[in-house]
């Protein structure tokens, strides 16, 4: 193909005619090969980083917990793989579980990247491919894209080859899931890690595009606060509810309402990440967000069943499959706006707005598929204004009234079926029992813990609408559900990294805790608040995004402040930073990459392995997806894992089927090279896992502190981290952790106030030799304190190896 670069050509004979060259096959690839060949693996293929993956997987072994003992993939089967048996195609349980995990990861990655493709095309059409990427005061605009692909995008058009690369690789990964073929679990795992890495590229493309075009905050620590909670919705106004993850269509709705001066007449609320991005829209200059956030997926069915919305607009991803059925029961028209969700509705994309409104207000149609987002901008608000009085006039009744509630509760025969099918086995039967006497406290407890799935409704032999009963009985508590969330600020900027990078690498800022993911919590939403508050008070940087960012804003302290009001949001210890929606999770790995690039001046371009090696050994960061349920959470976490960032999921996360856990008692596994001389150097077992589940927040908090420990910690950093680990263990587990001494390299690692006491314990219990005159450890530690050491897992980076 031609070597002509993209640009414009003028043809002399044709005055004022320019031909724009969008892309010539071969030209772009050549450009990057010539100018940006930084690292060894630009645009790595499926096997390019296999050695890195295998090295990770030898320390952190896959631990499989199957969700099903059978394989139902092909017509050979179904096959019973119980006991790690082989199926008809030759795959065993281990391999099948690894394949299943891979499938989750690439599903999640495809969801984000599909979103990226859609919004990139949409915004490129609207703003042009030369529209600059503007995400704040940074030169390193796209850390994930640059590290993985070698591309340094400056414009929307530059994102195109990056998304093409992701799509091509996801297709290759999906191909490996076909029956037979791969038989080794470890190579399915390597592919899963590849898929996770791709996910962060796809997410970054999505968020860079929307931040640049939709006026979203750009690394702004003062991004405005938005209202959040079911209780903050003004039910007296016509209400338009948006659900999903792709804000493109809702942005048009906001524009139309502003233009027509009807914004104050319509209550615009959102669920899930569309809600977060609605509060980011046009907030780069500050102001009051255009919408309110109702909450997470857990509130989806509850909000619909409340009957408050007059119109529902859905886009993609975490949207219930039964929105249309549920909404139709309450005469709420549903507009679907994206290929991913169409609910069997007629395509009205080319129809007249008035005709569509007529069909929906008359009840002739239950909803409409509208793929023209300009049409949507006008349709949704107008329809909302028209539907509201119609629904009021019809007397649409959603939840039962108080008399009906009593009748329903009295119908309960205490059979326990609801509790058995409840994903959290919540004490619904008990709530019914005491609710019969008018005491609704147990219902309020259940409401808080309930993920709003509605399985209880289907299980009840007496056909009690159990979820409606829970919600009606909890109305008082629901009305109090009001909080604030800081609009997502997007990336951590280059200047932020310059200021804080050294503290992270030395450990004097004890770590980054990233609270991400969905709302399938084991014990209600408040656990997340407790965890964040504790770690913020201890000077950790808490990054958050998506549903976790929402739930953190739902509680207030004794001064009436949410965490977003209580803690500042700069990139400093003790700060709480909402980076944004689901796709903004790329900024969390992006932050770690930026530390490598900006603070440590590492060449990240097309240089995944060396970048990950730096992050793994030096940056104390732990991801927490406490309520993870989606495939996207699996891919986000797995992407972090390939960078060496450990991730904890709540107990429901065990259903992802596999964890990656190390064995601290196998000494051989805990060694790295010292790049100065290539010698092996023992390290403490931290992080001790790449992906694991944890039972309770009380268990989680000391685990977070421990797993922020890194080989590069200086003595001050290690002392701070160790202090938090010991204090949190004593506070939440009631004991001194048994392994604390394994993280001590010298007496200077010990907390100053307890140094003498701890030295005595080391001497007595561990037999370490102490010079009591100088209060110095003479022998005992298995790891050494050497701040000049250069820990690496890559032998080739050692002196004399290149």
């Amino acid at each position, binding site marked *: 193909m031609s070597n002509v670069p993209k640009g414009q050509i003028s043809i002399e004979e044709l005055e004022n005619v320019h031909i724009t060259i969008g892309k010539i096959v071969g030209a772009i690839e050549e450009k990057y090969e010539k100018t940006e060949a930084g690292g060894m693996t630009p645009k790595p293929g499926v096997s390019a980083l296999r050695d890195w993956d295998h090295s990770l997987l030898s320390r952190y*072994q896959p*631990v*499989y*917990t*199957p*969700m*099903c*003992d*059978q394989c139902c993939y092909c017509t050979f089967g179904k096959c*019973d*793989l*119980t*006991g*790690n048996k082989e199926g008809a195609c030759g795959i065993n*349980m*281990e391999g099948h579980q690894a394949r299943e995990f891979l499938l989750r990861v690439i599903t999640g990655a495809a969801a984000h990247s599909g979103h990226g493709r859609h919004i990139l095309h949409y915004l490129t059409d609207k703003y042009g491919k030369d529209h600059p990427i503007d995400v704040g005061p940074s030169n390193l605009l796209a850390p994930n894209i640059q590290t993985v692909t070698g591309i340094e995008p400056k414009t929307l058009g530059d994102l195109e080859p990056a998304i093409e690369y992701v799509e091509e690789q996801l297709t290759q990964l999906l191909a490996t899931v076909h029956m037979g073929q791969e038989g080794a679990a470890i190579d399915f795992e390597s592919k899963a890690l590849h898929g996770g890495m791709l996910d962060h590229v796809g997410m970054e493309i999505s968020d860079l595009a929307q931040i640049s075009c939709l006026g979203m905050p750009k690394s702004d620590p003062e991004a405005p606060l938005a209202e959040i909670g079911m209780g903050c919705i003004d039910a007296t106004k016509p209400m338009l509810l948006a659900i999903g993850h792709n804000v493109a269509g809702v942005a048009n709705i906001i524009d139309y309402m502003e233009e027509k001066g009807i914004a104050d007449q319509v209550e615009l609320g959102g669920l899930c990440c569309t809600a977060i991005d609605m509060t980011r829209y046009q907030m780069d200059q500050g102001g009051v967000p255009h919408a309110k956030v109702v909450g997470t997926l857990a509130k989806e069915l509850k909000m619909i069943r409340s009957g408050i919305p007059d119109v529902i607009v859905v886009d993609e991803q975490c949207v219930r499959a039964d929105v249309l059925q549920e909404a139709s029961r309450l005469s709420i028209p549903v507009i679907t706006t994206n290929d991913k969700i169409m609910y069997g509705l007629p395509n009205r994309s080319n129809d007249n707005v008035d005709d569509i409104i007529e069909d929906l207000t008359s009840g002739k149609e239950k909803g409409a598929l509208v793929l023209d987002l300009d049409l949507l901008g006008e349709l949704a608000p107008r329809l909302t204004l028209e539907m509201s009085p119609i629904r009021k006039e019809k007397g649409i009744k959603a939840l039962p009234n108080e008399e009906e509630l009593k009748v329903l509760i009295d119908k309960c025969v205490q059979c*326990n079926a609801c509790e*058995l*099918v409840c*994903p*959290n*086995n919540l004490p619904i039967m008990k709530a019914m029992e005491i609710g019969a006497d008018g005491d609704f406290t147990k219902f309020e407890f259940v409401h808080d813990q309930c993920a709003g799935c509605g399985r209880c409704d289907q299980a009840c032999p007496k056909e009690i609408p159990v979820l409606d009963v829970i919600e009606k009985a909890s109305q008082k508590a629901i009305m109090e559900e009001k909080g604030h969330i800081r609009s997502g600020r997007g990336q951590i900027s280059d200047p932020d990294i310059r200021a804080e990078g050294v503290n992270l690498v030395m450990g004097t800022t004890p770590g980054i805790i990233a609270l991400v993911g969905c709302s399938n919590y*084991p014990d209600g939403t408040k656990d997340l608040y407790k965890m964040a508050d504790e770690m913020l008070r201890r000077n950790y940087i808490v990054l958050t995004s998506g549903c976790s960012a929402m739930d953190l804003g739902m509680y207030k302290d004794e001064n009436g402040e949410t965490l977003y009001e209580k803690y500042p949001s700069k990139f400093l210890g003790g700060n709480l930073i909402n980076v944004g929606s689901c796709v903004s999770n790329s900024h969390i790995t992006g932050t770690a990459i930026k530390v490598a690039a900006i603070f440590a001046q590492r060449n990240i371009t097309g240089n995944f392995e060396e970048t990950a090696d730096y992050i793994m050994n030096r940056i104390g960061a732990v991801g927490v997806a406490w309520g993870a349920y989606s495939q996207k959470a699996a891919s986000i976490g797995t992407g972090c894992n390939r960078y060496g960032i450990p991730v904890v999921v709540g*107990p*429901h996360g*065990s*259903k992802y089927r596999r*964890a990656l*856990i190390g*064995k601290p*008692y*196998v000494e051989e596994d805990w060694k790295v090279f010292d790049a100065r001389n290539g010698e092996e150097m023992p390290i403490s077992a931290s992080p*001790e*896992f790449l992906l*694991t*589940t*944890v*039972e*309770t927040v*009380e*268990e989680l908090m000391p*685990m977070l502190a421990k797993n922020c420990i890194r080989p590069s910690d200086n003595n001050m950093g290690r002392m701070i981290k160790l202090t938090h680990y010991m204090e949190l263990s004593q506070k*939440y*587990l*009631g*004991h001194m*952790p*048994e392994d604390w001494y394994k993280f001590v390299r010298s007496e200077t690692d010990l907390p100053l106030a307890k140094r003498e006491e701890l030295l005595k314990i080391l001497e007595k219990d561990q037999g370490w030799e102490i010079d009591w005159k100088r209060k110095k450890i003479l022998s005992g530690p298995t790891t050494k304190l050497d701040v000049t050491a250069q820990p690496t897992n890559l032998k080739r980076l050692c002196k004399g190896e290149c």
Partner: protein
Amino acid sequence: MVDTTKNTLVYTTWGPKSAKPVNPITISKLVSKAKRPLLVAGSELMKDEVMLEKAVAIASKGIPVAATGHSIKGFLDKGVEAKYNNIHSLAHFLGDKNWTGLDGKGGYDLILFFGHKKYYLNQVLSGFKNFTDLKTIAIERHFMQNASFSFGNLKPDLHVEALDELIENL
């Protein structure tokens, strides 16, 4: 004698192999015959003082305790020796024939589970079922289909009775 085998209703299945529902007396015999039994006690115990007392009573019969989640606090508060472990890590270690156990004296041949969330424990047990030879017993209020042996689904009062009978016969 409490019959704990009647109700084994499950919401979903894992596959063809399911736990054998057993009575307390059978469990006590299995535990007594084991060379190295281990009680893996979970954080749900911290929500119910009665259940914590039962776990303490089982531990007092000389069965070592791996306390998962934050249940260690409950045991230590009652002066019972227990070792903290994350349950997912513990499951990984238990499947490793080279692991020397909580006391450095070797692995275990029978694991008793008590005080766990149903869905979580079933996942952990699924790992044991498919990748180890270990005998696992669940003495929870719900039928744990992925254990080797389990109580069936029990009403709360019957569960207490069953635990008392088990403790008495240990």
